[in-house]
């Protein structure tokens, strides 16, 4: 605890000193938040009691800017603080070009609540998809160059160090229930050595125009999600596999993708797609080494945003499709999901009601997230909501014991 706190202060001091080096006082903004959530299906056990300090320390001039975003999470059930720098970067601006160096969140695509071409920044899924998206998305150390011609943007990202998706630990209520008890995990190969040859590179072209906004992208990257190499052990007496060792391992991946959005008669139509070449999938075919095969993979969505009676409504259909599918892959050939969002505000924006839902169409499962936000005072908001899981299997149904009600009190300054 002492060590952690000392380190924390060193980070903050270094951040402040580095900014003072610019000779100007930085602006400091941020928020304080209490987040208390209880599992409604498990005797009301608290699933989270968290206090957060999140700071934006920044300064901007015409040709240079910087930003540091230190955060501290304090949990009621833990002595140690969880803290770090979500972002810390320097911007250089010229007439037609911006360069950003440092730790940064990079966000691509037109999808809401779904990651399709949004593959540059890895995700922190230790609490599944429940945190705010700016907390799910992790910063990566990268060099980003944007070149502008009119309303056209050409973006190049080089990330020297691969950072994988963070998954829940085995003792977490969010650890996926995918494996039988006789499966053992070997994490010895999950890391990718930091080095030039293991860096990632991404490119994006985007354009805003009167009729259509488009993005085209490509990436040569590491798969943020590890392939689960599985070695099964045969029981000599039954000649059947009775145990297995699962070895998560990241692999190189190439993908191309794009997205568009445009408005027709007051309805904003959106689509986004990514095509992965040679993604690794787990198979139950025991004749295949480590139970892993290569397949191309398509991940896409179509969506529409419109207004009904003053309420904003958004619908998305998402499909994941494995090309040249051959049984017995562990994952289905097609996975279909829908999202639904409606929100409206009342009393001159003082109260906002929102309902967001992920609906798994294959397993009839869902995550339903009603939320009410009340502005008590300028910058001070009380948020109350719930995360309700339905179904018994699938991406959302597996958590049907984890229904949760929560409130958050957040003050922005």
């Amino acid at each position, binding site marked *: 605890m002492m060590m952690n706190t000392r380190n924390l202060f060193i980070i903050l001091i270094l951040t402040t000193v580095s900014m003072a080096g610019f000779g100007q006082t930085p602006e400091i903004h941020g928020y304080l938040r209490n987040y208390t959530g209880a599992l409604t299906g498990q005797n009301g056990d608290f699933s989270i009691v968290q206090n957060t300090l999140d700071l934006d320390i920044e300064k901007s001039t015409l040709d240079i800017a910087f930003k540091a975003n230190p955060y501290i999470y304090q949990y009621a059930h833990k002595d140690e603080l969880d803290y770090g720098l979500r972002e810390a970067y320097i911007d250089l601006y010229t007439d037609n070009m911006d360069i950003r160096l440092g730790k940064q969140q990079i966000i691509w695509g037109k999808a809401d609540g779904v990651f399709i071409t949004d593959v540059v920044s890895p995700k922190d899924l230790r609490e599944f998809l429940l945190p705010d998206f700016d907390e799910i998305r992790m910063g990566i150390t990268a060099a980003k160059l944007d070149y502008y011609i009119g309303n056209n943007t050409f973006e190049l990202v080089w990330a020297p160090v691969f950072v994988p998706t963070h998954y829940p630990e085995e003792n977490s209520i969010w650890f996926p229930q995918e494996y039988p008890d006789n499966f053992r995990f070997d994490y010895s190969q999950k890391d990718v050595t930091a080095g030039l040859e293991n860096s990632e590179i991404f490119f994006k072209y985007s354009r805003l125009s009167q009729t259509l906004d488009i993005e085209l992208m490509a990436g040569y990257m590491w798969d943020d999600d590890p392939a689960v190499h599985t070695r099964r052990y045969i029981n000599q007496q039954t000649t059947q596999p009775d145990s297995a060792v699962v070895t998560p391992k990241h692999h190189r991946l190439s993908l191309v993708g794009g997205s568009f*959005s445009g408005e027709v008669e*007051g309805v904003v139509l959106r689509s986004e797609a990514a095509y992965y070449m040679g993604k690794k999938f787990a198979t139950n075919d025991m004749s295949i080494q480590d139970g892993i095969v290569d397949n191309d993979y398509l991940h896409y969505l179509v969506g529409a945003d419109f*207004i009904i009676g003053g309420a904003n409504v958004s619908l998305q259909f998402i499909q994941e499709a494995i090309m040249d599918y051959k049984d017995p892959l562990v994952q289905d050939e097609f996975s279909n999901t829908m999202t639904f969002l409606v929100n409206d505000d009342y009393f001159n924006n003082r109260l906002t009601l929102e309902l967001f839902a992920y609906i798994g169409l294959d397993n009839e499962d869902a995550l339903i997230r009603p939320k009410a936000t009340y502005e008590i005072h300028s910058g001070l908001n009380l948020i109350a909501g719930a995360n309700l899981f339905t179904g018994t299997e699938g991406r959302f149904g597996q958590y049907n014991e984890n229904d949760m009600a929560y409130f958050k009190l957040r003050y922005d300054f």
Partner: protein
Amino acid sequence: MLHKRFKFRNIILLLLLLIPFMSNAQDLTGKEIIEKVYYRDDGDDRRGKLTMILVNSRGDKRVREIKQFDKDFGATEKKIMFFTAPADIRETSFLNWSYDDPAKDDDQWIYLPALGKVKRISSDSKDDYFMGSDFTYDDLGDRHPDEDTHKLLRTETLEGEECYVVESLPKEEGYMYSKTETWVIKDKWIGLQKKFYDEDGDYLKTLKVKEYKDYDGILVITHSQMHNAQKDHKTIMKYKDIELNAGIGSNYFTERMMSRGL
């Protein structure tokens, strides 16, 4: 005596000269008056800081602050707004491209820092209230005269200013206002007051211009108030640090600036 006769003759001459202009003014139609308001010189570009004070029936106040830039690009007007207060919406920005062609809907985008990306939004939001204020998105834009049928009702004096009172009925069915009445200051072509009636024809709200200033011959509204009588809620809007014809670059109205800020 000669002097007096000369003066009298001059007055007669002057009146004779003025008659065509006076009759022109009298003959102005409602549409011509609204067109004069719409086409009144407002500079090629504009920048300033907008403060909105939202006051409910109990007198509780909430404040929204915005940096605003807009510029004419021929038949297109582009506007970008950066929300600076309260802190929970800081760094949110809004980009609007509107077109002289009344048949063409605006293009609108919003940048939400929590999402970290620019998102196109539906132009159907024009009847939504802007940031909880009593102004709709449409109230804040320039409504093209061809979208309504206008009728000059009368002339009258308001706040010491000689005004035309023009009634405007929307051509579009189901428009959020069944009728508006605008008090336009003669010769200045600035709307001093506007009354709005809801879809059912009931009186809804009144916009009052409290102050306007002359910037090198261009009149700019610097203080106005919208009072929603049905909700007894009002929004005070103040516009300051105004610069006209400041030479704002066309690159201000882009995705780049939405996410970077100005």
